[in-house]
């Protein structure tokens, strides 16, 4: 795992001091709230409905045990004892006091963390596959490149006042778990015909009020050229992206209005002039970063563990958890254990201070001190011996972290909605809780199989409803909340944007509406079909019929 060197440490330290001064200026009344706003936003400090909110960066979703433990401490000392993991693989705290935030940042800096660029019209935290470095299906660990992107993008002097925020996601696996096609830039590692590993570059994906799937701007860019190519895209966007209307300022609109061929032409022209310059990264430097993400000291184990098999036979709840939450590891005898932050009836993505500390302890004991945050708002212990899975699950279960629902109907992505967010038009959390309770029965969830429900409390789509197999968008209609349903969205390598089923449902009706969709799916599915597969086969009509009948 990447460790800061003295340069990284110095930079974060200086930033922390700088923000302390800025807060001092604000509290003393030397600057107005309006003048303070861009300064605090650049440090992840929002002003929400009820309080300030602090969003802490978790670069590419990778955490060390000491870092997660510190996040728990911060929840306890500076907040109300919990934090909320987000679809950007970050964590946010809902109740810090402004005058205490500089101290919280100092405590973060002690464990090599910060809140830089978690907000503002700059390049945000780069996200990636939560199973990076562990997944059996991976071409290469994407994190060394993510770390290089982190450094390249941190305080980039040219790209700190972009037309809008800018999000980059990377996947090192053909099975995309990072939703790269719905990011401003998506990078997919693959091999070209010459057998070299590099990146397919996609641009212009995104959700919000005008959702798009990203388009390929270049089939292959070599690793050495990645950064000059990214800089070329960003320069074209900074110069030519729309600034007249903030809703039309994302790169997806530029790509849509100008066409991908025109944008490609501009980017290639720009890139030709800078590709051999100082941003070219040589193999030795890349090797240095790859070394820092070297696999931990795995033991040579048989892939079969008798005790593990016995525990599954003896304990049905454990077997259920293994079935849904444990994923194949590239190293024999090891597994990837997903920690669900979606207990039945709980708030998606929330974790308490003691839960964070427990996962930190477990990671230290069983997973080389390595923890991941997923864009689906769960945690991961990426390197657990199969022989230890039962012990890990037993500890998680006691702390309400052992829910066996990964990828199931209750593993809901939800934005904070009207309970916290100043932009929201409807509540999301209570709805996700009610859906979770309605479908809480595990056998039923398992029978339904993979079904991704994603809920957003407003058109900005932080809950990714456009790419939910079932998406739910909360809106406000004459002072009353109602919920619009979309079907057929997908954030994976087969990315698609969901279609609106029809008129929205009242708060009282919406859970029944979801249930009728699920019942219809069970009724018409063919063997082995997931909800999304059935939808793709039969289309909207059968589902529309159960939702609206003759209406």
């Amino acid at each position, binding site marked *: 795992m990447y460790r800061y060197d003295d*340069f990284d440490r110095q930079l974060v330290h200086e930033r922390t001091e*700088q923000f302390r001064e800025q807060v001092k200026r604000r509290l003393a009344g030397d600057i107005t709230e309006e003048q303070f706003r861009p300064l605090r936003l650049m440090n992840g400090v929002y002003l929400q409905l009820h309080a300030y909110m602090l969003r802490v960066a978790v670069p590419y979703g990778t955490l060390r045990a000491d870092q997660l433990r510190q996040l728990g401490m911060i929840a306890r000392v500076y907040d109300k004892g919990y934090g909320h993991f987000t679809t950007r693989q970050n964590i946010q705290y809902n109740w810090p006091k402004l005058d205490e935030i500089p101290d919280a940042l100092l405590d973060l800096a002690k464990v090599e963390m910060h809140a830089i660029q978690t907000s503002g*019209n700059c390049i945000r935290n780069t996200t990636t596959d939560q199973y990076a470095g562990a997944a059996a299906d991976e071409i290469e660990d994407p994190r060394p490149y993510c770390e290089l992107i982190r450094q390249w993008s941190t305080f980039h*002097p040219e790209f700190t006042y972009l*037309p809008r925020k800018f999000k980059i996601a990377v996947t090192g696996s053909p099975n995309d778990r990072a939703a790269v096609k719905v990011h401003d830039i998506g990078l997919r590692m693959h091999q070209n015909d010459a057998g070299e590993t590099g990146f397919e570059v996609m641009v212009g994906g995104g959700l919000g009020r005008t959702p798009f799937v990203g388009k390929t701007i270049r089939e292959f860019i070599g690793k050495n050229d990645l950064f000059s190519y990214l800089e070329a895209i960003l320069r074209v966007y*900074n110069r030519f992206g729309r600034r007249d209307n903030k809703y039309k300022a994302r790169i997806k609109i530029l790509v849509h209005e100008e066409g991908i061929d025109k944008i490609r032409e501009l980017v290639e022209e720009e890139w030709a*002039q800078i590709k051999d310059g*100082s941003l070219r990264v040589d193999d030795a*430097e890349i090797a*240095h970063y790859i070394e820092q993400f070297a696999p931990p000291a795995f033991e040579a184990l048989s892939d079969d563990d008798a005790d593990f098999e016995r525990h599954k036979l003896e304990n049905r709840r454990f077997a259920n958890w293994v079935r849904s939450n444990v994923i194949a590891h590239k190293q024999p005898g090891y597994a990837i254990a997903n920690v669900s932050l979606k207990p039945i009836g709980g708030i998606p993505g929330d974790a308490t201070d003691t839960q964070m500390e427990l996962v930190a302890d477990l990671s230290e004991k069983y997973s080389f001190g390595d923890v991941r945050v997923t864009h689906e708002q769960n945690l991961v212990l990426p390197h657990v011996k199969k022989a230890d899975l039962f012990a890990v699950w037993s500890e998680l279960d006691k702390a309400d972290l052992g829910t066996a629902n990964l990828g199931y109907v209750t593993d809901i992505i939800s934005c904070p909605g009207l309970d916290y967010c100043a932009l929201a038009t409807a509540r999301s959390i209570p709805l996700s809780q009610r859906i979770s309770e309605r479908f809480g029965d595990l056998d039923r969830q398992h029978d339904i199989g993979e079904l991704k429900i994603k809920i957003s409390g407003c058109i900005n789509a932080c809950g990714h409803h456009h790419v939910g197999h079932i998406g739910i968008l909360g809106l406000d209609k004459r002072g009353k909340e109602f919920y619009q349903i979309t079907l057929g969205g997908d954030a994976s390598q087969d990315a698609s944007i969901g279609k609106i089923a029809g008129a929205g449902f009242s708060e009282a009706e919406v859970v029944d509406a979801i249930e009728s969709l699920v019942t219809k799916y069970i009724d018409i599915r063919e063997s082995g079909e997931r909800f999304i597969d059935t939808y793709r086969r039969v289309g909207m009509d059968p589902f529309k019929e159960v939702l609206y009948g003759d209406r």
Partner: protein
Amino acid sequence: MAIVKNDSVIEQEWNTVDAEGDLPASDENLIVPLARFKEERDSLLGRNGGLGVQLNPGDAPEDLADDLDRLSIITVNFPAYTDGRGYSYGRVLRERMGFTGELRAVGDVLRDQILYMHRCGFDAYDLKVEGEVALNKVRAALKEMSVYYQPTGDGRVTAQSLRERRRAALQ
């Protein structure tokens, strides 16, 4: 109100005109918007005083490629601090086109942006405060950070090159 360049406050020695304003006497220093420069290029280049061009957001610095050595100053307008196009113009002018004259940021130039502007090739800042206050602002802004990740042609050594030097020394 005050212009800070190279760690000192300098005098405003330039007349700035907009698209339509009357030009001052031929031997006076003059800054014109790019659009006007393109329209009246020959007569402007024939004047005796110094000549500069102002770039506004949306302009293409490439339009000045043939005349850079005739310009003493280019001002880049930041009408709002949120409009960051000028940062790209600075890098293109300095690093690609090799402009060596004064590159001045004008408009909504805030203290917290000065370091970024400097990194993109700006060497002068038109600030809306008095001379000494302006000078102190620029000094403080340029000192606030000491670690730089990106190579931008501003002469600052990046963390990466310092790391490489260190590794080389250890070998």
